[in-house]
Each structure stands twice: as structure tokens, then as C-alpha cells.
């Protein structure tokens, strides 16, 4: 590190390294979410256990990224976009770590649900919602790795679908529980699975916000188009 050029090059590499680590962590979180949904939908006990077993990798990556980001801030004192990228990596790591936790939780509940009777229509609904959420997470991560603002905005704007799926699933599960009390146990677990998926969908939105901040340096202004919100004032029960 004798010359200035060398220092600069090294610094750029460190930032790249950080982004690469986050992208890899994103891929892992994505796979965890996908596998956990499949484990619930297919009643695949082995896959569910694999998801639970892999979660520590995400925790470890989160710690590593945090360490590297803090080191970079302390030693290089990045400014402007470099600083935003560093802070963005920090935030991304913790979001992805929590996404992984939700996936692990879904897999654990999948283990319990697999013990009970098959409930094909319900697990199919869960699978539909899961695929929707996994798609949003993929789009958000694609936007992060490519730094494409348009794609991030598209993710940010379209989260009503996940909410409506959640509300619809909630009603469906209630109907089942009222119809047959023996199913309450499994249904309650599926309810949490749905809630977890909804939370993962929210994280996808957060990732889109981070991308926007990283690229432009500004927070996204304005409200997201929430069509259901308009109805709330009219007395509809969209809030559950």
C-alpha cells in the first residue's frame, strides 16, 4: 500500500467484496425461502430439516458482513455513494438474516403440519402465496445486484397482492378451523406460515427501499398505492 493508486484499488475491491458477500447471502436466503415453501407444500420432512440446519450459515454471513462493513467504515471513512453502499450492505445483511429466520420458522412449522392429515387446498394456497413472495424477493435482490432503480420501484409499488393473499388465506383458514376443530392445530401453524410469508414480502419492499437509497441518496417519497387502504375508511375489514 505504498502508492495512492494501490490504496484506492484495494478500497474498491473491499466494497466489491462486501457487495459480493451480500449477493451470496441473498442467494442463500432466497433458496431457504423457496425450500421452506416447498417443504410445507410437499410435506417434505427431509427438506424442512435441511432448511433448519442451513440457517446458521446466514447468521454467520450476517456477522461476517457486519464485521467487514464496520472495518471498512473505520479504516476508509467512505463518503457519498461508497458510504451508502456500505451502510446498505449492513442493512441488507440484517434483513436477509431475518428473512432466513422466517424461512427456518416456516420449515419448522412444516414439520408439525406434515404430522397431521394432508390439507391439500390449504397448502396449495400457501404455495401460491409463497411463490408470489419468493418472486418479489428475487426481483428485489436482482435490483440490488444490478443496481436498477426501475426494478426496485416496481417491487416497492406492488405489495398489495401479497397482502390480499394473506387476508384471503386468513379467512380460508378460519373457515377450516370452524368446520373441523381437529384441524385447529395444523391450521394455526399454517396461519403463522402465512404471516411469516407476508413479513418476507415486506422485507422485499425494504430491500427495494435500500436500493433506491443506495443509488439516488434519497428516500422514496410518497405513498405506496394501497388500494385496500382506500376501502378501510368505508368500513371494510381489510386489517386483520
Amino acid at each position, binding site marked *: 500500500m505504498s502508492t495512492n493508486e494501490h490504496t484506492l484499488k484495494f478500497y474498491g475491491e473491499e466494497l466489491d467484496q462486501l457487495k459480493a458477500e451480500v449477493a451470496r447471502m441473498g442467494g442463500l436466503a432466497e433458496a431457504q425461502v423457496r425450500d421452506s415453501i416447498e417443504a410445507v407444500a410437499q410435506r417434505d420432512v427431509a427438506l424442512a430439516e435441511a432448511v433448519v440446519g442451513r440457517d446458521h450459515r446466514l447468521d454467520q454471513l450476517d456477522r461476517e458482513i457486519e464485521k467487514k462493513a464496520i472495518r471498512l467504515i473505520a479504516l476508509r471513512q467512505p463518503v457519498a455513494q461508497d458510504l451508502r453502499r456500505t451502510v446498505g450492505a449492513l442493512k441488507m445483511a440484517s434483513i436477509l438474516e431475518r428473512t432466513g429466520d422466517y424461512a427456518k420458522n416456516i420449515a419448522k412449522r412444516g414439520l408439525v403440519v406434515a404430522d397431521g392429515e394432508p390439507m391439500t387446498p390449504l397448502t396449495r394456497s400457501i404455495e401460491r402465496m409463497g411463490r408470489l413472495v419468493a*418472486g418479489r424477493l428475487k426481483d428485489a435482490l436482482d435490483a440490488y445486484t444490478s443496481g436498477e432503480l426501475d426494478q426496485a420501484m416496481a417491487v416497492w409499488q406492488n405489495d398489495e397482492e401479497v397482502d390480499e393473499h394473506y387476508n384471503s388465506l386468513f379467512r380460508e383458514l378460519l373457515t377450516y378451523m370452524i368446520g373441523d376443530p381437529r384441524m385447529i392445530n395444523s391450521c394455526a401453524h399454517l396461519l403463522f406460515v402465512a404471516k411469516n410469508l407476508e413479513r418476507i414480502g415486506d422485507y422485499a419492499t425494504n430491500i427495494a427501499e435500500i436500493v433506491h437509497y443506495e443509488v439516488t441518496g434519497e428516500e422514496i417519497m410518497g405513498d405506496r398505492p394501497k388500494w385496500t387502504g382506500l376501502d378501510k375508511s368505508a368500513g371494510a375489514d381489510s386489517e386483520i
Partner: protein
Amino acid sequence: MPLLHPFPPQPSPKPASQGLRSSVAGAAVGAVAIMALAAMGRADTPTAAIAALIVVLIGVGLGYWTARTSDAVQKADVGAPTPFGFPSVDAQSYAMALELAPNPLMLVSGFEPDDLAGRRISFANAAARELLRIPREGALLVAAMRDPVVLEAIDESLFGGLDRIISYETGGPQNRFWRMWTKPIPTTANGGRLAMVLLRDETDTRLNERMRADFLANASHELRTPLASLAGFIETLRGHAKDDVAARERFLAIMSRQAERMARLIDDLLSLSRIELNEHIRPQGACDLALTTADVADALAPQLAAKSVKVQLSLPDRGAAMIVGDRDQIVQVIQNLLDNAIKYSLAGGVVRVEVAYGLTLDIAAASRPDSPRLAAAMGGRMSLQTPTWVGAERYAALRVFDEGPGVAREHLPRLTERFYRVEGQKSSGTGLGLAIVKHIVNRHRGGFFVESALGVGAGFCVYFPMIPTAPVAGAPTDPRLSEKPRHAFLDDPVPQDSRGEIKLS
């Protein structure tokens, strides 16, 4: 394999200052050509394209080898006949063969196992660049592909020297299945390591398999009801209704309806399968949304007369709402939406059909002030398909409103599910109409939403990306479009007031 070392030491075409990456890539191009050949040759069902590539590569390899052994041809003599009658080939040609290969092919380089940012794509051919949206060289590997299975396989080739073949899927609404071959490439360049990565799209095969299974499961389940009813009537006609003429006529009428229903169901299932098979391929043609809507509405006249339902069309001039689309599929979308609206209309009701164009994405996806959702307290709105690609500047929208019983909120998200029928509503449909619409809209990168309130009616809206430039003479595929002089509608400002309301022409 003597072919593995067909390269004479020759001056690097790039200046040395371009660094390790280029030189590493250059040195390995020949080796990759052979590896790619081997990998592609191993494919279970090589496509014609792959076969052609193999032929090219073999020809190329043989040509070079002969050129070299004869030792008579210099680099400058490319194209001169060799003793065997082949044109000779240089490294540039090998690189070009890889570049033009139909399968995505990459060279990945790396230094240390723990240096994640050091894993770069040193070379990506045209197919890979298009697929992964990366530059020709220098992209961060994890930014292009982040599936853990993929990364692990590449690492094993880079640092473990192993050949790997894996399968993975990309996920998302236009899910694609890939098979990936990775192979280490021997290189002596300063400590760097190289691996070849070749992808093959297996989406068609996988979807075909899945569809066959789905089709069997769905068809057998859904066909059982009408079949049981048919069997019942046949039994009755053989038995005590044998000589009862009136009953026989009645039963035969019901049986004929059931048979029609079965035929419709099979048609819809087949059509859905076909659409799903093409879902990841973007449509190419041009289609006038307004003109197509008018055509479909005309064809529905008998159905309308039978139910005494009126259709109120408000369409822009022809040539204005030109969208990127496959006309047959767009007809199917319009047909299914109109069919539904007529089916759920009460006798004497009115179905409103509107086409608007030149809308921005926000406006295309927004509610109209006269939407049924806003007319009642329990109205709901649900996006059934959000556009997966937001590159289009302008959209054209088709909206179909009916005055039927409407759909309750809780049913909205499930409307496009196969065979989903709203409870308590007796319908003669197959339960596949909206599923078909959704898949067609997804293929067209468009959007689809429903708004409804019980007792007020339902509105379905689809919107599609428009053709980016104003239509020029000769461009439209529909010959009727040239009957009348067209205006540059697309250049007109979108008529709208401050509330975002769209005025239809």
C-alpha cells in the same frame, strides 16, 4: 486428446496492460471450445442447434489441426485452402464460435476460495450476456448468479478441479429451469484459476413433464362429474325411461349439454397448456386492441341476443391502441372477459367495454372513478397479475364492467386459480377462463386486475405494453388497418385531468 492443445504460442491480441483477466481468457479459449463440445455432446437430447455447433467446432478443430501440422499457413492466410480443402482457422474463429453458440457459455476466473469478489466472469458469450444482463467481461459472479447450488458447483470446478452437472431454477413468474455444466480449465497464468460454465435451458422439457401430470390430474378430476352424469342418464334410458318419448328427449338434451361441457373443458385445458409452454417467450407481433375488441364483440352478438344483454363499446380509432401482442391470444383474453361479463349479467343488463391507450403504468393500473369498487362499502380490488417488466413507456388498457352480482372480497385473490369457482354461484364455465387470461397477460408483460363490490358488479381490466413508436405505414400486421389514414395518436398528450382520470376517445 491431442485436440486439447491446438494453439501455437502466438502474440496476445490485446495489450499486456489489460491485465491478467484478458490473458487468462485468451489462453483458455481453445480449451473451452473442446470442453463445450464435450459437454454439449453429452446432452441427452441435443437440439439441432447444438448439433450444428458441434459440427462447426469439430470442423474448426480439425481445420486448425491440419493447418498446423502442415505448417504452411500463417495467421494471415485465414480462408486459404489447406491440403485437405478446409479453410484454416485462428484463435479468433474459436472465440467467435463460442460467442455465437446458442447456449449461454461463460469463463469464470478466481484466485482464492475466500475471495468472493475475485470470482469474475472473464468471458460471457452473447447468449449469456442476454440472459444474465452482464457485460462481456468483468462481471462479478455472484451478481450474475447467486443460487447457492450454482456457486458451490462453480467453486468445486475452480478450486476442486471437479466436473459438475447440476439443475436449478430461476424462480419468479417466468420461471425457467436450467442445467449447468462446469468444468475446470487447466491454466498456468499467475495463480488464477478458470472454469467453464455452460447453461442449457430445460424449461420446455420440465414444463412439458409437469403439464402432462397436471393435465391428467385436472382432467380426470373435472371430467368425472359430467361423465358420471352421462353414465347415469344412459342407465336410465336403458331402463325405465326406455319407452317414454318425452323423458328421452329431455335426457338427451341434458346429455348433449354435458358432452359439450366436456369438450369445452378439454379445449380450455389444452389451450392453457399451450399458453404456459410459451409463457417465458415474449410475443413478437402487433395487434390493435380496439379493433380486436370490436371483432370479438361482433362475434358475440348471438349470445347477447339470447340473454338480452347489451354491450356498450367505447373504443378509440383504429391504429391508436397498438400493442405488442399475439393476436390470437389477445382475442382469447377479450373473449374470456366478455364471456364472463355476459354470463354474470342479468337479463336486460349492460356490459361496458372500454379501450384506452397511451397510459402510463400508474394510470393503467389505477381505478376508474366509476369503478364498482368505489360504489359500495364492501368493494374490493385485487391485482391478479402485476407486470413483470416495467420497461414499457405507454400501455393500452381494456376494461370490462358488468352489472352482475359482483364478487366478494375474499374470493378475489383466487379468481385466477384453476377450476376455482365462487361458492354458491352456479356457472356453466370450465373454471379456466381467468387462468388463461392471467397466463396470456403474464406472457405479454402486461397487468390484470379486478375490482368488484357485491350487488354492484365487477370490472376486469387488462393492460398491455404498447408498441413504442408511432405506427408507420406498412408496419401493422392487420391489413384492415391501412384502409383509413392514420394519425400520430401516440404523440398526442394523454388526455387526463388532475385526478388522473382518463378520457377515452
